[in-house]
């Protein structure tokens, strides 16, 4: 792979391809390849790059950053993080109680919409890191679920 004057050369399955990349990065990348013109919108997040071309969407994901909302830990536990800034309205499960997969644990309000933050797996709620009424930031830890042994 090499780059020269806004063009990019890639060998794909042995075949050399010459891309012509436009100069502007905001507002999408303009790519000309084999006479075809694409406008790709690319967004970078901590965990993934999303590329949207012609209304279709492609993901490139990282494996080493915990997923927001429901990150499975190696031991079969899940640590659930706040997906965005918001407020904890109500705790729906008490620490120590059993939870089903997809059961709501925290009632969360953001942008005037209430959503239940659910347990990603069946198991036991071992820790709740927030209290009712608390304002949280994106990626603050909300609660931890320890998976059922049999479920692992």
């Amino acid at each position, binding site marked *: *792979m090499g780059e020269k004057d806004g063009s*990019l050369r*890639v*060998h*794909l*399955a*042995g*075949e050399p*391809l010459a*891309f012509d*990349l436009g100069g502007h*990065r*905001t*507002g*999408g*990348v303009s*790519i000309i*390849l*084999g006479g*075809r013109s*694409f406008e*790709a*919108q*690319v*967004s*970078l*997040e*901590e965990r993934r*790059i999303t*590329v*949207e*071309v*012609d*209304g*279709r*969407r*492609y*993901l*490139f*994901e*990282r*494996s*080493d950053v915990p997923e927001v*909302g429901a990150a499975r830990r190696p031991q079969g536990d899940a640590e659930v993080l706040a*997906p*965005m*800034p*918001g407020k904890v*309205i*109500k705790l729906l499960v008490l620490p120590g109680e059993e939870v089903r997969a997809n059961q709501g644990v925290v*009632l969360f*309000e*953001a*942008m*005037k*919409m*209430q*959503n239940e933050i659910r347990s990603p797996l069946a198991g036991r709620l071992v820790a709740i890191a927030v209290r009712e009424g608390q304002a949280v930031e994106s990626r603050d830890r909300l609660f931890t679920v320890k998976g059922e042994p049999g479920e692992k």
Partner: protein
Amino acid sequence: MFRKLVIANRGEIAVRIARTCRDLGISTVAVYSDADRDGLHVRFADEARRIGPAPSTESYLNMNALLEAARDAGADALHPGYGFLAENAEFARRCQEQGLVFVGPTPDGLALMGDKAAARRIARDTGVPIVPGSEAVSSDQHAIREARRIGFPLLVKAVSGGGGKGMRTVSSPSELLGALRQARSEASSSFGDSAVYLERYLHSPRHIEFQIMADGEGSVIHLLERECSIQRRHQKLIEECPSPRLDPDLRYRMAEAAVAVARAASYRNAGTVEFLLDNEGNFYFLEMNARLQVEHPVTEMVVGLDLVKLQLRIAAGGRLPVSQEEIRPRGWAMEFRIAAEDPFRDFLPCPGRIDFLRPAGGPGVRDDSGVFAGGEVTPHYDPLIAKLIVWGEDRADCLARAERALREYRVEGISTTLPFFRRVLRDPQFRAGEMDVGYIDRNWRGWAAESETISLEKERDRAAIIAAAVSAYRAGSSRRRRIAPPADRSAWVRAGLEEQHGSRR
């Protein structure tokens, strides 16, 4: 006409109202919370007044602050927009007492239509069919009794509600109390009134509504219907005018019913009569929204009239300047609600900074944005940031233009509902006009998953996508400071970069 008008709202609707006021030479007063000092609506108004801190209960729902701002500014009218205090009879009454014209129905009219249970009685008494349901439920016990009578599934709905807020679907008795709690809490924070009622849940009906205009002097006209069946959690995402489902006969009968309800209620100003339509062509009165709707622009595009202007004229004591016969619809219009929500994460709201904005343009495209490039979408309010409205000679033309416009539209920095719309536009059912309120629940999960998988037929397409990713990856470190670019490329999974890696030899 008014001299100075307070816009008791924010975002795109405050901008919308400011525009028509400018057109009419009415001076405008924007109000803003601390979170909205940099809002577009502040810039588009002639005056601006702070009304409190970010939480809406202390600002946009704060009657005292709003009335004080109006008094201080010497305003003679107030437009409430939609949501917040738009359908609050007490607020309308207090405006009146202060000598401030409330642009909307009379306080009594609001109280009547705001009490969804009372509105249902009016419809029933006028001979318009209604969905079976309860009055406002006074307690959990009352709710349980009524629920048993109505049967499951059912809906919990806010008495003062609208826009799907304070509304919950309940499929079995065990879910009832939780749903009541959530609906009451949401209703309280959205409308300052926690009262709710129950209604039978109809299986997959269409949501069709009629735009009404009444001058309170006897003239009541309708400005056609809007098809609003594309909803998620009772929030509309796509609306169109006219409805692909109605034939002239059904349209005539529903319009007659809508006008009859408005007449029976001695309604004044703009209102919307909502119906559910089942697939046998039976329609049921749902409620009447006593305010301007979010989706009013599709009507404007088709009838060629400015609904806010009509509202202001009527509020200023004027008669309706058009008769029913003079309403001459032309073409077809659709609205797409561009919200700061990630459709790939269950439409989770995602506030943040808009790095780049390029609305669609060209023939048949109208842009009603409440934001601008460089602006911040705050987590405090509704995630709606812009409305894309598309007009065409007929539905096929409108669909084609909508597809084009959605393809052009660029928002960077936050996730939006745009990818959702692009996918819906490719669906043969939607294109054929076949839809009901269950459409999104039935289809979207599968579509979202499908788009997460890289499955390209052509190597060249794949290569272009890789090039875009690589290009963004390189540019990333300099441009986006808030997000650390991944340090180690080998940590990236899925086909994309691995393919490229593998193809290097």
